[in-house]
């Protein structure tokens, strides 16, 4: 396997970029969550640390680093320490297959009389364009359950164990609904690659061979049921309200991370926000056209790439705000009600969605 050094260099640049954005989601989201919740609850929110409370995340990070890091008595030391890593792993690795911009042709770069870069190479803004794209995301996301289960068990604490078992059961139930809701999208795209899914959503909506009303051809319009199932399952997967039985502040002390403090707790915290970011990116890619700017076909230049990447970030940010908005608006349901609707309402809805999409494709309307 011969490695082209330019390819390797470009991949490293992509990894650095994506990792920088993914890791910086946490401090930004902490601030958004706290100011956003304050806005919804009609109170000021953090406004002491820095202008508008912008340095609050820095203060939180400092607090986490300076707290005492302990292992509870008779807890299983190895698994207790390993659990936050399992929580972080899916959140950080699944961004590798999500396309974040329009592929463009790198122009020739000539500076100071020397040609640094010959033009003509196509830059694919996706770290790993494997042919099983979305299956990789499902595979790695199903490993998130282990972080939860290990944290709850290894803490040697009944509350943690209950929280972990409830949260794991909820996560594996809604994983099914998540995957089935995404199948509608994959059927319409005809491929498992996320780049194909996004290319399918460029342009305008064509029904009966005629462009009606210039609606962008995003998947959310024909597959509304699939989108609803997907977004609900996304809330359940990331353990956000109204599905946050993992934490359940009023019921279980702090659920599976009761016995965690300092950097290990910070890793769980980061993992939750990064998972939110990844699932938002996935939802945008599958249902909202990814990097596609509606009503405009971007040219294959660097400017086109930048604008499409910006559009992607804007869409992901809007969806992240919806996550925060729902958290502070909806109440938490009863656990058995939740499991019941997960299996008896959302799973059949996902099947109905597959049926509808299959009929639409067979009629040639998508």
């Amino acid at each position, binding site marked *: 396997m011969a490695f082209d050094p330019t390819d390797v260099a470009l991949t490293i640049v992509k990894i650095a970029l994506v990792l920088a954005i993914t890791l910086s989601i946490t401090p930004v989201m902490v601030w958004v969550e706290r100011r956003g919740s304050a806005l919804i609850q009609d109170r000021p929110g953090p406004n002491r640390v820095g202008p508008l409370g912008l340095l609050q995340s820095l203060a939180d990070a400092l607090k986490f680093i300076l707290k005492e890091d302990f292992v509870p008595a008779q807890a*299983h030391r190895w*698994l207790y320490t390993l659990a936050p890593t399992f929580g972080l792993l899916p959140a950080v690795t699944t961004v590798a297959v999500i396309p974040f911009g329009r592929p463009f042709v790198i122009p020739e770069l000539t500076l100071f009389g020397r040609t640094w870069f010959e033009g003509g190479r196509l830059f694919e803004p996706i770290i790993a364009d494997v*042919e*099983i794209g979305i299956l990789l995301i499902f*595979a*790695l996301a*199903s490993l998130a359950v*282990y972080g939860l289960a290990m944290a709850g068990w290894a803490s040697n604490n009944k509350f943690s164990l209950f929280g972990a078992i409830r949260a794991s059961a909820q996560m594996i139930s809604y994983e099914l609904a998540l995957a089935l809701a995404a199948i509608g999208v994959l059927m319409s795209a005809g491929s498992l690659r996320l780049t194909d899914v996004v290319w399918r959503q460029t342009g305008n909506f064509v029904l009966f061979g005629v462009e009606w009303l210039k609606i962008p051809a995003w998947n959310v319009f024909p597959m509304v049921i699939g989108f609803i199932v997907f977004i609900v399952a996304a809330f359940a997967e990331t353990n956000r309200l109204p599905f946050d039985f993992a934490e359940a502040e009023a019921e279980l002390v702090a659920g599976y991370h009761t016995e965690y403090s300092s950097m290990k707790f910070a890793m769980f915290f980061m993992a939750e926000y990064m998972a939110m970011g990844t699932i938002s990116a996935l939802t945008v890619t599958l249902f909202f056209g990814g990097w596609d700017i509606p009503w405009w076909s971007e040219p294959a230049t660097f400017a086109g790439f930048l604008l499409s990447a910006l559009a992607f970030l804007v869409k992901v940010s809007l969806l992240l705000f919806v996550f925060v908005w729902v958290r502070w608006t909806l109440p938490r349901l009863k656990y058995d009600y939740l499991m019941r609707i997960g299996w008896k309402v959302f799973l059949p809805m996902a099947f109905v969605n597959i049926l509808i999409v299959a009929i639409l494709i067979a009629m040639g309307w998508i």
Partner: protein
Amino acid sequence: MFEIVVFFFFAVVAVAFALMVVLHRNPVVGAISLVVSFFSLAVMYVLLDAPFMAALQVIIYAGAIMVLFLFVIMLLNLQHEPEPLNRPIQRFLGYFAGSAFGLTLVYYVVKAGVTVPRAEVPFLSDAHTIGVRMFEAYIFPFEMVSILLLAAIVGALMLTQREVVRRDERLADLEQEKPR
């Protein structure tokens, strides 16, 4: 060269964690080691040009079956009783027979493993090919496996159901103040 390094690294990981499953006395550690072992096997499948099967391996085995194992181990709270060991003679015979079997198997597999030479056609292992083959030639086993899974679900529910007392019987007992 890169492939050989990856193969050896993940082969060592797979074998080491498989040994941990078999030799460690705590079943939770065994379950997590098995997950790591399955993950290394998934990497092996990628090296064998079958990435779809690798994804399936992680989703089904590491993501669903082992979660089930972990649930059962955690709920039965098995870690507090240290597992009694078998009698030494049984353990010795087990290790000896297993190792002898393993060594013999490895020797003969390496010596006479692949007799028919490689085919020259390219290996198609993507989802489309497998899907087409599944729905054309293997449609009957596919439907039978779905019925089998239904039978497994019903069977598992039946085996673990506690004794279900009818509601009117329970109310009648309460009225007579019969201790249950």
